[in-house]
């Protein structure tokens, strides 16, 4: 169990983490610029190769090889764009480069979520109020029950099924998340918000789906269906992969959720914010390629402590963070992918039913 820190201890804990941050921020330069440009290069050429393989693979014998290979290249390109490039650029990790093409405020990623809306709910709401039930809508994405602290509702009986549906349509899920339908039903958000964000979502979805399911298939002529199916498969793989990585970020093992207390939140110090981020996140262990394909969200703990530090540095920051956590008795939730995703899945099944405490109070 993680130790409860006093305000003083939390502040010291925060100061030590700030020192880690400072060390890396002062080093920002050539190496980080090279990293992100290299990622973009690999991503662009994988994308081009993938689309080319899908286009030209219309001859039956070649089809068996080129189609799966094309899908693989394209899905990796999409995964890299969304996770290692888009997500991280939109966090402002490369804003210091002053490159208009890598600017958090203007970057538009290759997924159906409207960038401006996502930046607000993700960078501000999720990263400021991480794992606070009612404030951070990323806890279960408004449809799953992943913590005993979330009030049980009858639809949670379908938790495992909901999980599969959410994973397969994760891009749409994240896009529609901006509509805040849950809050609208509760009267906390207006219908005009739904109209405005809904229009943005539709505009972007039309553009991306138009590209994947109309333009590129048409351009390929005789291989219309092959290209369309290939693009669909690539989007689906991207969805499952990103969903699985993201679900490992805040819900496995001992990662905590918090109850909303306005007074506590308003007086929260930078140190206490660090403690909350730390205890609400979970890492996945793996190699370099795995970290890149997860957009370094496998270092979710470091990402939540230092959201605007270039993500490829998280691997280097992790040992220092672990040492500080150990010193202050803070649990550092980490494990291999199957352990972490298994733990999340366990919770998905476990919380289909109401938790005991709530049963009693309901009675």
């Amino acid at each position: 169990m993680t130790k409860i820190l006093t305000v003083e201890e939390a502040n010291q804990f925060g100061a030590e983490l700030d020192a880690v941050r400072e060390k890396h921020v002062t080093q920002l330069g050539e190496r980080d610029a090279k990293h992100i440009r290299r990622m973009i290069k690999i991503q662009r050429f994988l994308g081009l190769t993938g689309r080319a393989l899908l286009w030209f693979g219309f001859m039956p014998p070649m089809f068996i090889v080129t189609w799966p290979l094309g899908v693989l290249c394209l899905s990796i390109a999409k995964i890299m764009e969304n996770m290692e490039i888009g997500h991280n650029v939109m966090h402002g990790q490369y804003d210091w480069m002053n490159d208009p093409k890598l600017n958090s405020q203007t970057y538009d990623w290759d997924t159906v979520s409207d960038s401006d809306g996502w930046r607000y709910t993700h960078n501000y709401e999720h990263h400021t109020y991480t794992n606070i039930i009612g404030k951070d809508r990323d806890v279960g994405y408004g449809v799953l029950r992943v913590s005993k602290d979330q009030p049980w509702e009858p639809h949670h009986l379908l938790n495992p099924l909901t999980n599969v549906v959410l994973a397969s349509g994760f891009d749409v899920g994240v896009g529609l998340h901006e509509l805040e339908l849950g809050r609208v039903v509760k009267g906390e958000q207006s219908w005009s918000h739904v109209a405005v964000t809904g229009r943005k979502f539709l505009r972007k979805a039309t553009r991306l789906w138009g590209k994947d399911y109309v333009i590129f298939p048409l351009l390929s002529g005789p291989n219309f269906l092959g290209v369309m199916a290939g693009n669909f498969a690539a989007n689906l793989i991207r969805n499952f992969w990103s969903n699985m990585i993201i679900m490992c970020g805040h819900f496995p093992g001992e990662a905590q959720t918090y109850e909303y207390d306005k007074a506590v939140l308003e007086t929260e110090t930078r140190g206490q914010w660090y403690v909350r981020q730390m205890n609400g996140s979970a890492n996945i262990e793996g190699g370099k390629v795995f970290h890149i394909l997860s957009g370094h969200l496998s270092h979710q703990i470091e990402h939540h402590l230092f959201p605007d530090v270039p993500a490829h540095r998280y691997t280097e920051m992790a040992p220092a963070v672990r040492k500080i956590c150990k010193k202050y008795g803070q649990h550092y939730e980490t494990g291999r992918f199957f352990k972490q995703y298994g733990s999340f899945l366990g919770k998905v099944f476990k919380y289909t039913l109401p938790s005991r405490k709530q049963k009693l109070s309901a009675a």
Partner: protein
Amino acid sequence: MNTSETLSSHSSVGKFEWLNHPLTRAATRIGFEAEALSYYLEKINPLWSLTSMKAQVVHIIDETHDVKTFVLRPNAHWQGVSAGQHIGVAVEVGGVIHKRRYSSSKAEATDKSTNKTVQITVKRVTGGVVSNHFYNQAQVGDVIGLDAAEGDFVLPDKLPSKLLVLTAGSGITPVFSQVATLLIAGYKGSIEFVHYVRTPEDCIFGKQLYQLAEQYDNFEVQWCYENSKSKNSPERFSSKQIQNRVTDYTERHTLLCGPAGFMSVVRKHWDDLGLNDSLSFEYFGAPPMGAKDEVDAEITLKTGKQIQLRAGESILDSLIANGETPKYGCKRGVCHECKCLKTNGAVKNLLTGNVSDSGEEYIQLCISAPVTNVTLA
């Protein structure tokens, strides 16, 4: 007569006009990505960008011991420049893109073929990131970013019959470009060019000015050396000094460009003479460097509105206290929602204590306090 309309022939090449075609716009809406296509094209040739203005360094000229001129060939997005205007350049140093503006230092020729290049003249400034990069690293073949020409330091609408030019230090660059352009275009009036410079070794465009004076009877150039160590006795601007150099100076329309100190002396004299109307001027010199302390300062917003900022207080707090409604989120430097484009001035990061670059860049309002006056776009 306005120089921008008549004297300089704009080298606007409309190669990428199709990017603005309704069909392209429609294609963009349904998935066409100029940005992606541009990426692959730029891998083949960095100038083939569909979206960004860029230029290649084609020639480097040593002017003095600390000044070099760079001849640049812009890509098809370039819209041209008028003599007296400045050009935005962007170079990458240590992974960071730095932006600066330099005066166009080229004599606009009437010959179309030489109009395909633009020219800037860079003086090396101690500690200056961009000027030192240009001076030490830049090579023929390098590709740099460009921003459109700007500035309204252009000749008066009705071209006067007699001109006086007063410049000091590197303030000579925009005016040299204007004067050379005028002469090449066939200006028949008289031009007296008086340049104040520390020593003969510091003199930019000395040879070119000398050649122009040889070639055109209506053009005279005089150099005044301000450094007492030089061979001649030191010579600084004063009413008596200018009277000696150009006897009819009060009858001439005057173009003035140089460092702030020099200009305030000259402007005061013209004010005393009651001749403000016949003076055109532009401030010139390196941006303030070395400012480190948080100070009370003024911020100029996109709307042109000016607001007082308090030393040590975040710009976001000052703006909110003054009834502004900027976009923001966490107010602790995490979410980047309050990011704004700063076009001028330097700020201190309240979390790290680092002082920013003085050029154009994005800043987080919630953790930035002013160290100089600041302009946002």
